[in-house]
C-alpha cells in the first residue's frame, strides 16, 4: 500500500523529468553542428579545427527556372583564421549544386589550387582548369562563373575589395576562351560595387 503510494507520487516528477530530458535532447540535436563533408583535396592545409562552430555563408547560384542569380545557403566552419573562412566559402561555391532549383555555374572539373588575401584586400583565387571540358563552356557560363565567384567572396566577406583569378598560378587573358579577364588589381577598382573581375 505504501509502495503503491510512493510510486503514484513519483509518477508525475518522473514524467516531467523525462519530458525535460527529451526537450533538452532535441535542443542539443538541433544546435549541434551537422557533420561537414570532408574537404576536397585542394585544401592543402586544415581549414578548421574539430571544435570550431558552424557558420552560414551565401553562395551565389543561378535559378534553373529563369536564370536569375540567387543566394544559396552553405555551412562552413568558423575558423579562427578569416582567410580560411573565405577559402571554405570559395570551396562551397566550387563544389555547389549542379542540379536542382539553384545551380552554381561552375564547370565540372574546376578545382582550387590556392587562395590568399593581400593586405590591401585583394583576394586571389588560383584555379586549376585542367579537368574541365573546355568545349562545353561558352561565354555566358564563363561570365556567370566569374560573376558568381566574385559575388560569393565579396558578398560574405567585407574585407575583400577586389578579386583576382589566376589559372595554375598564372595571369591568363581568359579562362575558357571567351570571357576576358581583367588586367591587374589596380586597374579595375570597381568590384565591390559592381561585378567586374577587379
Amino acid at each position, binding site marked *: 500500500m505504501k509502495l503503491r503510494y510512493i510510486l503514484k507520487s513519483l509518477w508525475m516528477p518522473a514524467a516531467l523529468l523525462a519530458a525535460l530530458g527529451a526537450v533538452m535532447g532535441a535542443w542539443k540535436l538541433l544546435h549541434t553542428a551537422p557533420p561537414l563533408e570532408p574537404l576536397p583535396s585542394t585544401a592543402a592545409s586544415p581549414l578548421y579545427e574539430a571544435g570550431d562552430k558552424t557558420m552560414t555563408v551565401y553562395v551565389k547560384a543561378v535559378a*534553373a527556372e529563369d536564370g536569375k542569380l540567387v543566394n544559396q545557403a552553405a555551412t562552413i566552419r568558423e575558423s579562427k583564421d578569416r582567410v580560411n573562412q573565405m577559402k571554405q566559402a570559395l570551396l562551397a561555391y566550387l563544389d555547389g549544386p549542379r542540379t536542382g532549383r539553384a545551380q552554381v555555374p561552375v564547370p565540372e572539373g574546376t578545382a582550387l589550387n590556392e587562395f590568399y588575401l593581400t593586405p590591401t584586400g585583394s583576394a586571389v583565387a588560383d584555379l586549376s582548369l585542367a579537368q574541365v571540358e573546355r*568545349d*562545353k563552356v561558352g561565354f*555566358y557560363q564563363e561570365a556567370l562563373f566569374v560573376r558568381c565567384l566574385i559575388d560569393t567572396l565579396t558578398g560574405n566577406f567585407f574585407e575583400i575589395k577586389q578579386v583576382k583569378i589566376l589559372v595554375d598560378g598564372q595571369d591568363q587573358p581568359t579562362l575558357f576562351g571567351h570571357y576576358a579577364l581583367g588586367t591587374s588589381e589596380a586597374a579595375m577598382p570597381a568590384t565591390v560595387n559592381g561585378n567586374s573581375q577587379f
Partner: protein
Amino acid sequence: MCADPSLEKASRLVKPAIRFELFFLLAITVSVPSWGVAKPVIVVDAAHGGSDPGVKAGSEVEKDWNLRFAQALGKALEDLGFEVVQIRKRDETIPLEKRAQTADTAQASAVLVIHADCEWTGNRGGPMIVLEPPNQSTESAEIPRWGVITPYQYRLSLKLGRDIAQSLGIGTELSNLSDSRGLAGEADSPTAKIFCLPHQSLRYLVPPAVVLTPLFLSHRPDVRKYSADAAVAEFAAKVARGVANYLQY
C-alpha cells in the same frame, strides 16, 4: 558678220571642242557623286574555325554555325548596299590578333562578331548581344596587351547593339549581369539580352563592335529553328536592318 576668214576657221575648230567640254563636264557632274560616296564597310567575323571548333553540344559545333550565320549576314548587308569584309570565309584557323588587325584596317563602320553559345542547363536560348565595357585602366603599360575601349567607343557600340536589338525585337535594356564600370544605373534588368561584359573577340577592336549570339547550341528549340536556312536568312536580314538604322543608311 565675221569678215576675217581666219577667225571663221578658228570658230569652226573651237565649237566642237566647246561641245565636247560641255559633254565632259555634264558626265563628270553626273558620275562624281557615286565616286565620292563610298559604301559603308561592315566587318563580319565568324568566330573560331579550323583547329579551334569553339563550343560543342552533341553533334553541333560552334565554328560551323558561326560561318553559316556570317555568310547569311554578309549577303543581307550587301543587299542593303553595304560593303562587307568577311574575316573567315571557310573552315580555317585565324588568330585573334589577325582578326582584329583585319577589322581595324578595313575602316569599318561596324564590326559584327558571330558567336554561337552553349551553357549547362540547356534552358537558355538566343539571341544575345555582347559589347565591351569601357576600359578604365590607368596602367598604360597594359594597354597594348589588352586594348582600350574608350567611353566614346563604348557608347557607339551600345548604340549599335541597341539598334540591332530593336530590329530583332528583343528589347534594348542592359542585363544586370553587365559590368558596372561606367554604367551607373543602366544595367538593371535580369532578363535583358544585351550584356556589357569583357569579351576576348572585342578587346582589340577599334570600330564600334558587338558580339552577336544568334543561338545557344545547348538549347534544342534554337537548333531546331535555325536548322532551316530561311530562319537564318530572316535573322540576318533583321540584323542588317539594325545596322542600317545605326548608320542611318
